[in-house]
């Protein structure tokens, strides 16, 4: 079950620059669809019919951050990243 931060947390995080406002991003030009990220992080990433990852647009929950960073580090073409804030 995917745990999303409740809205109050998100608002607080935005005000204090907290951790919850970190999001996963794929560089679609670099991504070649290895699918390693979806294997490591099936809770958050699924693959489209062509094998490219679909990442959630919502900020990452605190407990997902370490797993997300592991997936980022494992991407063979460094297309996946964790970035602060919405874009």
């Amino acid at each position: 079950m995917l745990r999303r931060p409740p809205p109050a947390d998100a608002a607080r995080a935005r005000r204090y620059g907290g951790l919850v406002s970190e999001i996963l991003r794929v560089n679609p030009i670099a991504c070649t669809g290895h699918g390693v990220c979806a294997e490591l992080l099936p809770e958050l990433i699924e693959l489209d019919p062509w094998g490219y990852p679909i990442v959630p647009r919502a900020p990452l929950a605190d407990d997902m951050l370490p797993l997300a960073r592991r997936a980022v580090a494992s991407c063979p073409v460094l297309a996946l990243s964790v970035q602060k804030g919405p874009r």
Partner: protein
Amino acid sequence: MTVAVMTRPLGRQASLPRLLAGPPGHRTLGLLEHEQTHGPLPLPGLRGRAQRDSAGRLMDVIERSGLTGRGGAGFPTGRKLRSVAAQRGLPVVVANGSDGEPASAKDRLLLTRSPHLVFDGISLAAYAIGADRAFLAVHEHESRLVSGLEAAAAARAAAGLDLVPIEIVGIPGRYVSSEQSAIVQYLNGGPALPTFAPPPTHERGFDGRPTLVNNAETLAHLALIARHGDQWFRSAGVPGAAGTMLVTVDGAVARPGVYEIEMGTPIGAVLMTAGGLTERPQAVLTGGYFGTWLPIDIAWHLPLTHRDVKAAGGALGAGIIVALPDTSCGLAETARVVRYLAGETAGQCGPCVFGLPTLADAVADLAYQGDLRAARHIERLTGLVAGRGACKHPDGVTQLVLSALMAFATDVGWHQERGPCYGVRRPPMLPVPGDMADW
């Protein structure tokens, strides 16, 4: 069908055309004719502090005029000038004269008819932001346009008009190449393809310098505002959408072509300007191939401003209006355009490379086969493609497809239940490069 539309109260009619003014016909205005028509280039040629003051005043006038970008996004031009001028480093001006939209012809027409007006705008913009270099980007395959512009630039250089050198750059004539980040990457020696999350062009564009990228038409308006003032500019148009704009009108009208209209003119009145309707229309494509279909009852009275068209669920884009006749099939037209756009992917992002051809197949299935679940399948595919490219190419395609499902909802039902309608046999309305010999 005759519908009388009053575009504005009588008595405060602004005199048009502005951008396309000059002797009748479509021939090019030479430098002399240009100056006779519009007056000389109001470039004070000051240096130092006096230059900064007068440049600041020029930006004030542009800001007050309410001029917005005519390339599609409609961003306030004055604010863009200021944000580039405020950056550290010597700025550069890039004028985008490459109609990316296959259905648009306005930039080509403006640059053919009044090249010096665009050059004036480039020069004034460079003066305003303190740039030392400028480029005018046009499609390289339009060799007659390129040579005409080079001749015009030579005439200006001989007259010593411009304070900064203006280079004419031919960019590869592909749909995605006219995107801002693609042009900047090309000027920097890279391929003419969009980039992912580039630093904002106004901060670091050409050569890592702050770069002002404006549409050619926007700069031509700027050249006129510098001559006649902001109040004059606002005397055409409506509150919140000042001045005139060039629209490319096509489809079921007697005289398709490029017209200069006041912002806020209802779409119906624009179609009448283009010679009136030749057939009963069912829908209007607004904004081009990255735009949206609107049913005719919504479109007819809709004023052409970014806000009004957006509120109706459409997009003004670069000012393209195509009237689709009743006897055409909107789904078949859309299927052809989507097929073309799928082939125009830059080939960089997986969801675009694989998703768009799949989407094109699905739309073609709906138009020519009529599977019961076709529309559901299309909607699912658009969700998989939208927002997943480095540029807005896939987003534009999905927007077009979704608007077709809404505007032609009755046809969707017919096609799904009974198969293709008679309209699919009609010769296509929307121009797609490749089926025209002279493209």
